[in-house]
């Protein structure tokens, strides 16, 4: 069929296109276009009414000009006029113009919608399809408002033609995507599910996309689709290659429909009905078997279509994650593809294996391919394939192969493509930290990273190695020795100088015994790099020097001389100058004791999520690091960056979290005036909001409790926040009852799926708070889907049966972009929430105080102030605690006394509190006396962390 006979015969258009093609320069093209635009404008404005044909031709020219990339600001009206033409081609061009140049001009939208409405009710299937295509292409809210109720009717009406049904299904899908609130479920929904049984394969193909989308949001309403989908799939999979006629594609029966069916099934858990499940497993086995059969055609289309189904089936198998046999078979199949001659298949096999690596059933099977994957990393010619190989190595890494994988990644880094170096560096750093058994290996790895790819080692990575060295005294000597050796290299990266400066400044003494690394040698080595470094590094080195003066008094004279020279003390950079001046002065006037106190070794850093992991997440977006996340749950911990359970010191650190610098903040205090002032700096913001100085808590896989402590004295606020999710709390308590409103806000633009929350009470609490935090029967459990930018609410009813000390745990799970997110938070339900304030006179107070004089009834703590000691702030906190704050009771007006009764279902516990601040020493003494010993202890524990 010759092409020309198909054209619309718009000669003017063809001439115009030829002209444009003949233009020799961009300028000539613009000139020709402007001429044409002027011509069209005059035609549209002219007195003579244009006939339909001319209008169509000019509108088409405008469209062509627009598609060339030029702006079009007129002609919309003429296009809308074409919509109501009774000539098909004119109507068609009108619709095309509208679809391509959507304009939210409200005047026009009304006219367009009118024309669409006429065509939809015309009962002419060709016109109906045109109108539906237009709605699907534009998909605006205005169109959804106008047609969201009409289209379902067309879709399920008995007399609708198949082709119209197909268009209606996908049109509805588009509207549902843009305006889900306007597409109301109804009687039509059950009939839509049955379209899966339709005789016309095209109708099934179109309808299943709609059904998949609807079932994601309303899984229960659509769950009958599972068995229908399984039987449809089974019929396709077992059909001979010619049965489906034109729906067979290169000897593969209905590949698109098969993929869509397998995808629909991924919205649901494995079928519960044994027969359905059996049939499905049979289908999956058949698909895996077919992959082993010889190809029916040599054409790539045949193998692509066949493998498209195979990969989708593997996705489903991974989604179920419950059939070890299928998982291992899938893995073996992918293993074959790893060595396939088609680059595309190797790429996809690497990608798909990444998800298999996270299943406990197939993790070991994936690991057997390690050599092939390493080889791919070394030999693949396409960087995107190498990237996949690196991802897979990262995913399959565990304690058993970490050393090998890290070594391979390091050696790959030497020649790696620039575009992936930074990510590779982060991944190596994470694996080295996560699977470090001995820390000397970890230190070696990171220093190697800096050596090989120093430019790509971000702050997070070198901050982290310092944090870890400071926290682990068994590695400090080794770190000092290694970094000292690394610094010997004639050209070493500035990041190495930073790490070296910091570590020698802290732990240089550990290697000072060896004359080859005596204090003066160390200093000279560091100082030999000084003039090559940037200002921040020089500032760091100056701090290292003053630390040297403290560690090695014999270096004092040499270092003072350096500090005193003009290039330091008169440096044009204020920061450097200030450091030089202050350090010089400090070293001259301070006594040895003072110097030793000021320049004391850094305290351990609080354990928390590795800042480099956070960085990788940020860099790669959600999903990218999901694999190690999942591993955490399955394998035993012991990582140095574990959950934060590192003995007593970590508990103490987390209490003072608010005042330690955040991971992204300046670890070394370089940007603050001087390192000595690294003490709490939150004072400035106290007046603004006394309770929320801690800011957004770090995202955490382990239980997060900084949020928790901020709620002891308040009931409302933000409990948790990371890049994805914000959780707000409002709560109210009366007597022994409470109600808590949780607000889950999706901060992203992507929906959270399978959103579930559970509340559990650890250990003892189970038996104490009965009907613990049971979800209110009046509200449904949380919506399974949280749309991008949306917020959902959940109500918890709480009843306190008897006193308790452990808080309930809230566990939140959801999928974001395919990755499972799992979060546990301590819910801020503390015993003091059930206080009833009790007013009493001074006399009464002290009488009761004396009555509660048994030693175990009293709990006392003396502690350093962590927050402002301002009277108003303290009063606000004590009131927030729930007790009555009693004036004129304590003879010392500086002291605070409070009284209250804790209401539990079983009993009432009277409590008296006395808080004695000592402003000069910045200390408090807190005393509690309660009629129940355990309550005194618990309250004392909670409150000691509040002031």
């Amino acid at each position, binding site marked *: 069929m010759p092409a020309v006979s198909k054209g619309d015969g718009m000669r003017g258009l063809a001439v115009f296109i030829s002209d444009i093609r003949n233009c020799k320069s961009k300028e000539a093209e613009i000139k020709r276009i402007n001429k044409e635009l002027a011509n069209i404008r005059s035609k549209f404005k002219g007195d003579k009414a244009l006939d339909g044909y001319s209008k169509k031709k000019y509108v*088409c020219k405008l469209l062509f000009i627009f598609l060339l990339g030029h702006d079009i600001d007129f002609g919309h009206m003429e296009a809308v006029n074409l919509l109501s033409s009774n000539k098909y*081609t004119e109507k068609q061009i009108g619709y095309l113009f509208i679809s391509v140049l959507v304009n939210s001009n409200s005047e026009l939208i009304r006219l367009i919608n009118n024309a669409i409405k006429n065509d939809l009710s015309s009962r002419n299937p060709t016109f109906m399809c045109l109108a539906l295509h237009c709605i699907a292409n534009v998909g605006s809210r205005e169109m959804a408002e106008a047609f969201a109720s009409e289209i379902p009717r067309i879709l399920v009406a008995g007399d609708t033609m198949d082709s119209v049904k*197909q268009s209606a299904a996908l049109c509805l899908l588009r509207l549902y995507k843009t305006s889900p609130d306007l597409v109301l479920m109804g009687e039509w929904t059950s009939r839509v599910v049955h379209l899966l049984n339709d005789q016309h394969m095209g109708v099934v193909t179109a309808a299943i996309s709609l059904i998949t989308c609807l079932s994601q949001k309303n899984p229960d309403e659509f769950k009958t689709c599972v068995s229908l989908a399984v039987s449809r799939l089974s019929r396709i999979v077992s059909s001979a290659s010619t049965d489906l006629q034109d729906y067979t594609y290169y000897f593969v029966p209905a590949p698109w429909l098969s993929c869509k069916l397998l995808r629909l099934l991924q919205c649901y858990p494995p079928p519960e009905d044994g027969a359905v499940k059996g049939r499905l497993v049979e289908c999956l086995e058949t698909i895996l078997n077919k992959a082993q059969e010889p190809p029916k055609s040599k054409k790539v289309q045949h193998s692509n279509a066949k493998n498209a189904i195979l990969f989708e089936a593997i996705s489903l198998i991974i989604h179920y994650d419950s059939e070890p046999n299928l998982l291992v078979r899938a893995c073996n199949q992918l293993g074959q593809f790893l060595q396939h001659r088609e680059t595309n298949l190797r790429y996809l096999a690497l990608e798909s294996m990444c998800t298999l690596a996270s299943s406990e059933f197939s993790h070991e099977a994936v690991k057997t391919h390690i050599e092939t994957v390493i080889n791919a990393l070394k030999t693949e010619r396409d960087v*995107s394939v190498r990237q996949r190989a690196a991802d897979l190595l990262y995913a399959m890494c565990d304690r058993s192969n970490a050393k090998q994988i890290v070594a391979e990644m390091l050696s790959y880094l030497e020649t790696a493509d620039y575009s992936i170096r930074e990510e590779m560096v982060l991944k190596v750093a994470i694996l080295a930290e996560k699977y470090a058994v001995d820390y000397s290996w970890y230190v070696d790895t990171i220093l190697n990273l800096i050596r090989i790819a120093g430019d790509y080692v971000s702050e997070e990575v070198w901050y982290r190695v310092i944090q870890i060295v400071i926290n682990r005294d068994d590695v400090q000597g080794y770190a000092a020795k290694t970094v000292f050796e690394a610094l010997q290299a004639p050209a070493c990266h500035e990041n190495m100088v930073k790490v070296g400066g910091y570590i020698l400044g802290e732990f240089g003494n550990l290697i000072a015994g060896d004359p080859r690394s005596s204090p003066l040698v160390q200093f000279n080595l560091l100082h030999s790099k000084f003039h090559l470094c940037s200002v921040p590094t020089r500032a760091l080195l100056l701090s290292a020097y003053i630390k040297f003066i403290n560690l090695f008094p014999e270096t004092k004279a040499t270092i003072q001389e350096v500090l005193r020279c003009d290039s330091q003390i008169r440096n044009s950079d204020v920061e450097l100058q200030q450091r030089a001046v202050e350090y010089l002065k400090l070293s001259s006037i301070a006594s040895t004791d003072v110097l030793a106190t000021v320049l004391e070794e850094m305290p351990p850093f609080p354990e928390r999520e590795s800042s480099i992991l956070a960085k990788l997440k940020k860099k790669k977006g959600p999903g990218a690091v999901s694999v190690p996340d999942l591993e955490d749950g399955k394998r035993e911990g012991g990582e140095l960056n574990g959950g934060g359970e590192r003995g007593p010191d970590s508990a103490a650190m987390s209490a003072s979290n608010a005042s330690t610098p955040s991971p992204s903040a300046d670890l070394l205090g370089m940007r603050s005036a001087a390192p000595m002032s690294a003490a709490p700096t939150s004072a400035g913001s106290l007046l603004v909001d006394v309770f929320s100085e801690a800011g957004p808590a770090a995202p955490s896989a382990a239980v997060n409790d900084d949020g928790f402590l901020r709620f002891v004295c308040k009931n409302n606020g933000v409990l948790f926040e990371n890049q994805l999710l914000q959780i707000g709390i409002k709560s109210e308590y009366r007597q022994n009852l409470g109600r808590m409103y949780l607000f889950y806000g999706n901060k992203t633009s992507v929906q959270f799926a399978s959103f579930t929350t559970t509340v559990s009470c650890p250990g003892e609490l189970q038996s104490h708070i009965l009907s613990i935090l049971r979800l209110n029967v009046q509200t449904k459990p949380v919506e399974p889907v949280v749309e991008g930018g949306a917020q959902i609410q959940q109500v918890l009813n709480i009843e306190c049966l008897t006193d308790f000390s452990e808080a309930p745990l809230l566990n939140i799970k959801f999928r974001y972009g395919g990755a499972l997110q799992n979060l546990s938070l301590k819910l801020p339900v503390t015993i003091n929430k059930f206080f009833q304030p009790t007013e009493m006179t001074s006399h009464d107070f002290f009488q009761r105080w004396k009555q509660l004089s048994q030693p175990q009834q009293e709990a006392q703590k003396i502690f350093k102030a962590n927050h402002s000691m301002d009277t108003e702030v303290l009063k606000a906190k004590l009131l927030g605690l729930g007790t009555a704050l009693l004036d004129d009771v304590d003879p010392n007006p500086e002291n605070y006394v409070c009284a209250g009764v804790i209401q539990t279902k079983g009993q009432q516990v009277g409590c008296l509190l006395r808080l004695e601040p000592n402003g000069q020493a910045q200390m408090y003494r807190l005393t509690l006396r309660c009629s129940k010993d355990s309550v005194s202890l618990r309250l004392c524990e909670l409150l000691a962390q509040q002031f």
Partner: protein
Amino acid sequence: MYMQSIHLMQFMLLFSRQGKLRLQKWYVPLSDKERKKISRDLVQTILARKPKMCSFLEWRDLKIVYKRYASLYFCCAVEDQDNELITLEIIHRYVELLDKYFGSVCELDIIFNFEKAYFILDEFLLGGEAQETSKKNVLKAIEQADLLQEEAEAPRSVLEEIGLT
């Protein structure tokens, strides 16, 4: 453990080896400016790739599936968890449809009959999802429309097409 949200194709672009855009179909709402930027960046990225490279690449937060047919590149953007191979075959089926309709389609056919290329695409893919995968059925729909047109305009078209390349 895997996908949860429905993945529609985000857009489809056809461009020449010289980087000229021949067809663009957007299935997600984007401003004109964003569309231009995306097309420009993506065309550059793909043209820079070597012939034997893999047909898939990660690009921003999308997955790009592309294939070259003679002087034209066909390129689809899908979401992260979409099936790459079936998308590759979507492209191939569209090429087959164009080929069958125009008879050994070449770039010029698509330049001079761009509106037809759009109409065929709409019959095949709607809103980014496969609407009708049977070649026969798609072409039947387009031919029916052509018949309607020829009835209306038969006298004019024959004369006007003479002398065109």
